[in-house]
């Protein structure tokens, strides 16, 4: 098995069961979640945030597809791109594993997964993405 690395440390956790969790945080003062995790709350600027894992379940809100590689991107196209409302009440803009918008619909259940981006000198580079989940 080849080595792998996340596209950036501290973004997500691979749960080993096909799902992932986002490494977010919750502010003790204003009670809002944010992601990626930061020490200072991006809403109220207080520094009483504590770590909170987010996901893996949510529902799709908006979606499109990226057809050509954007600047600095070395992975495959097309890929999906959308906004997912997580059960925790946080809204995440992220990649979608489904690259055909015709196969997506607003409100459908989504699951946070680990996605292979590209290989860097033999190392698998991975990121988080949402995949369509079964209803239920």
């Amino acid at each position: 098995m080849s080595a792998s690395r996340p596209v950036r440390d501290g973004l997500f956790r691979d749960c080993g069961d096909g799902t992932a969790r986002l490494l977010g945080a919750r502010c003790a003062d204003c009670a809002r979640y944010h992601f990626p995790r930061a020490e200072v709350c991006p809403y109220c600027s207080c520094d009483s945030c504590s770590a909170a894992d987010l996901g893996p379940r949510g529902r799709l809100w908006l979606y499109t597809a990226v057809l050509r590689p954007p600047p600095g991107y070395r992975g495959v196209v097309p890929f999906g791109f959308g906004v997912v409302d997580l059960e925790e009440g946080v809204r995440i803009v992220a990649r979608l594993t489904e690259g055909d918008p015709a196969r997506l619909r607003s409100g459908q259940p989504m699951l946070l997964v680990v996605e292979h981006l590209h290989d860097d000198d033999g190392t698998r580079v991975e990121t988080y993405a949402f995949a369509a989940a079964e209803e239920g």
Partner: protein
Amino acid sequence: MSGAVEIAGVGLHRFGRFDGTSVVDLGLVAVRAALADAGLRRGGFQAAYCGTVYSGVAAGHKVLTALGLTGVPIVNVEAGCASGAAALDLGVGAIRSGRYDCVLVFGMEKMPAGIIRSSFFEPWREEAGLAVTPAYFALRAQRLMRESGVTREMLADVSVKNHRNGVHNPDAMFRKEFSVEQVLSSALVCDPLTLFMMCSPNEGAAAVVLRRGGRGGVEIAASALRSHLPGSVLGEHTPLSGLIDDTAPPPTSLAARAAFEEAGLGPGDLDLCEVQDTDSARELNSYEELGLCGVGEAGPYYAAGHTQMGGALPVNASGGLLSKGEPLGASALGGIVELYRQLRGEAGARQVDGARVGLAHTVGRGANASVVILKR
């Protein structure tokens, strides 16, 4: 309002692609034209503010160095798409404060072609494919389709409208009409947006001379610059993961409210608007954010034809960025130059009859939004 500010003169280098011409060359053309238009001689302005994003160190200084007009304070301003508007806002404030009587404001840019690689995005976001500006625009467009009665045909028609207006603007890059079918069948960029619904980054420059008011010229009735509140989603700041609050007013609404209050005017007083149309959906979004129509009403408002030439409130009579292209530092001031010409009845075949009050809007990365109201 302490101390009215008016426009003493304007200048423009037309927007387009000009290989072999430096950004300083472009700026020189606009600045010289504005100084001549204002009848200013050496020593005529006491400070200069230059909006630009990609021009490097002390770009505004280079322009004024070439003209032998240095010695005064020169400030280079970067605020994304609103850079020129931010420069204008500083100039207006400086005159109002009583510090200066006359200032030069200009903006200029030579943009790279294609999807712009922006240092706004961190490297990991680029590597993960998240640095994809048109996809954020597409999500906003889809939202308008779902919540504001906007259709694909309407998105195409905004481009048709602006290109039709742009035919009459000699300073525009694209002076060609398209049909709705042509716009819809142009290359898909990010569903629902097609290539002809997106503006092109390009090159150009614009300049405005401001002076203490009261001489009967076109007056700056209001200038408001705002940034986003924490958490606003699908704004021009290309929201990144974790920002959730969709109820926060977007920066355009913050700027519009402040500008209308400052001017003592409302949307019903406007005769024309120049609105940021980075893509077709952005223009429709701005109708709601500026308060031209209610939230959720952009579709029916557009369909009623109000914003067409001859309608109650023509939007982007200049052809907008869809026709002119978008040279970041210059584009906001391009809107000011257009309004100035319109309010003076000098807009030729694209003249909005009897225009007395106009609004210019820009919004961009940061997020920054600017609303400027001119009146005569």
